[in-house]
């Protein structure tokens, strides 16, 4: 199943699609207001881009520096080549504690590794503590956005879910009261949590600290109440210096939600007295992406979600239509690296308008990479035959002025003579599924131009001395 087919399902509910589109655009507008208030914002984007480029160019060195610093802080550092190893390491730490109750704050990496189902299968209770993530965990769904995991749901949906799982009153859909119910429910989970798992926003090579940014405070609450903290990070989360956080904390929340900063920017460096801290460093395809010169810049991503909020395709197709942990434009350039066949349609889920690139806080050339993935997929024959041959045909047609002229003439006639049902048939013309073809003009521009009197003055070329 490809992106377009999954998007069709989302589009069945027109009102909800419009709501989704407008709500995410509203977030984009908030982002703009926050960004314009910082005079040096464009310089910060450039600096962030350069810092990330530099870090990737010395990634092995920084990984070793970070590991040494973290170990000196009394932190256990683990390395996982892939999702399987990541999950096994975490289960092992949990078992060593004899723990069964896990609280987890947001981590796209653990989603990517499918950690929750793995732990649950082994008899461990895993509670997602971010409100949006808890909602979708109850519903057995995947997040549809990396910052706003439940943005595909309406408050009535959340009300139904909470009525079923938390016993809130039937029909209750007030966000304030639903959030309060979740607060009470999760507080009990926090107090009982034995091991806390968190993601990592930034890992500072110089100090060995991991920085976690949340608005709800769930990472701090979970980690600081549990006996053991496990922080999971991809190798690309590194930044060299503590002061680099000045750049990234100024960019992240403004780009994500239009806030000046997240409520909590927490620096976990050493475990508390008598407690344990573990960091799991994960590759899972990232070094492979590092080896692709055209696509390695995708590893600079700081997971703000700005490219999703601005993307006209994401806003009108929903995160689930991408069927990948990270949806939207950035997901469409990360996913083919993981499984080219499965995600072959994602680089085509774009108009190549470039809005994603314009808002990216670390200046990833997202739309250029989308275009380049299309070439790679074409070469690898991972695009449907209909698309491949129609593109080849169009390429020939558009390259020849003579054939182009003839085709235009033919099309203008055909559109006038053929019945509407045929020219707009969804079997032949996917473009016309929700659109009307324009009224064909009587003549082409070329025909018109040739009919003009030849006496029209040609512009004088300035004389160039020879």
């Amino acid at each position: 199943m490809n992106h377009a087919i999954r998007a069709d399902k989302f589009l069945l509910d027109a009102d909800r699609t419009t709501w989704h589109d407008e709500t995410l655009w509203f977030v984009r507008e908030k982002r703009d207001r926050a960004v314009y208030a910082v005079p040096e914002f464009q310089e910060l984007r450039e600096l962030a881009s350069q810092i990330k480029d530099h870090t990737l160019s010395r990634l092995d060195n920084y990984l070793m520096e970070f590991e040494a610093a973290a170990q000196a802080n009394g932190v256990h550092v683990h390395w996982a080549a892939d999702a399987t190893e990541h999950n096994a390491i975490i289960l092992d730490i949990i078992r060593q504690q004899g723990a069964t109750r896990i609280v987890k704050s947001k981590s796209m990496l653990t989603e990517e590794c499918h950690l929750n189902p793995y732990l649950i299968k082994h008899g461990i209770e895993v509670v997602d503590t971010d409100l949006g993530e808890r909602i979708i965990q109850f519903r057995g769904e995947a997040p549809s956005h990396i910052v706003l995991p439940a943005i595909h749901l309406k408050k009535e949906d959340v009300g139904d879910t909470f009525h079923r799982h938390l016993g809130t009153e039937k029909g209750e859909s007030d966000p304030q009261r639903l959030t309060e119910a979740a607060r009470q429910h999760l507080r009990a989970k926090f107090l009982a949590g034995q091991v806390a798992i968190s993601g990592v926003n930034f890992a500072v090579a110089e100090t060995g600290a991991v920085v976690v940014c949340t608005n709800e405070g769930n990472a701090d609450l979970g980690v600081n109440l549990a006996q053991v903290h496990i922080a999971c990070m991809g190798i690309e989360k590194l930044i060299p210096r503590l002061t680099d956080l000045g750049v990234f904390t100024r960019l992240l929340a403004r780009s994500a939600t239009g806030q000046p900063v997240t409520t909590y920017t927490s620096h976990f460096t050493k475990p508390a007295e008598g407690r344990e801290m573990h960091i799991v460093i994960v590759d899972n395809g990232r070094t492979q992406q590092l080896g692709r010169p055209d696509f390695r810049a995708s590893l600079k991503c700081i997971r703000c979600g700005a490219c999703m909020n601005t993307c006209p395709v994401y806003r009108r197709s929903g995160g689930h239509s991408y069927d990948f942990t990270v949806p939207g434009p950035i997901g469409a350039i990360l996913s083919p690296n993981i499984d080219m066949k499965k995600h072959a349609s994602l680089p085509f889920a774009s108009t190549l308008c470039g809005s994603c690139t314009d808002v990216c806080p670390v200046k990833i050339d997202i739309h250029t990479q989308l275009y380049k993935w299309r070439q790679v997929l074409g070469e690898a024959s991972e695009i449907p035959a209909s698309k491949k041959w129609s593109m080849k045909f169009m390429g020939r047609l558009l390259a020849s002025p003579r054939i182009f002229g003839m085709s235009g003439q033919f099309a203008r006639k055909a559109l006038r003579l053929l019945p509407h049902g045929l020219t707009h048939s969804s079997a032949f013309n996917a473009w016309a599924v929700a659109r009307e073809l324009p009224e064909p003009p009587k003549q082409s521009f070329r025909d018109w131009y040739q009919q003009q009197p030849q006496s029209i003055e040609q512009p004088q070329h300035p004389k160039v001395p020879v």
Partner: protein
Amino acid sequence: MSNSRERILAAAKANKPVEISLPTVPVYGGDATVERFTTVLTSIGGQVVWLDGLGQLPEVLQQLFPDAKITASLLFQGTLPVDARTPTDILAEVDLAVLPGEIGVAENGAIWLPETNMLHRALPTITQHLALVLDHRRILATMHQAYAQLPSTGAYGKFVAGPSKTADIEQSLVIGAHGARSLVVLLY
């Protein structure tokens, strides 16, 4: 596992691009006024109250939080003595924590709170309400200036900007997610 470490490092080394230099980041400054700090913190759901000296603290807190029964503080005699060994279920009863902040940031209303000022690492988020006391001369303009001034981030420390909040249900802002339901900054 050590095998994976070697494999990852070798792959990173083999696949990385030619070295690109690390830029020098200017310490951008800007408006570091109490007014700016107050405007921004208020806009993100926090509250700023002026103290005429630290001696006024208990009286002002009494006015702001008349219903707070269990209080914990590093600055005055609260009703509950808290330290790193205080059991979780006792911490969960705290109504109000009053802690000293170290640095304020005018551009985003954040306050640096190191572990040494927290009594217990979980206290600033588990308390129902949080009051941070800050010397107004410690307000800086930007995050760059704040990080430049921090001697280190210690074993644990965080910037706190406003009360805990969420907009995960239909993008409706709700103050009081899992952490403190309110944040008051007491400036002196």
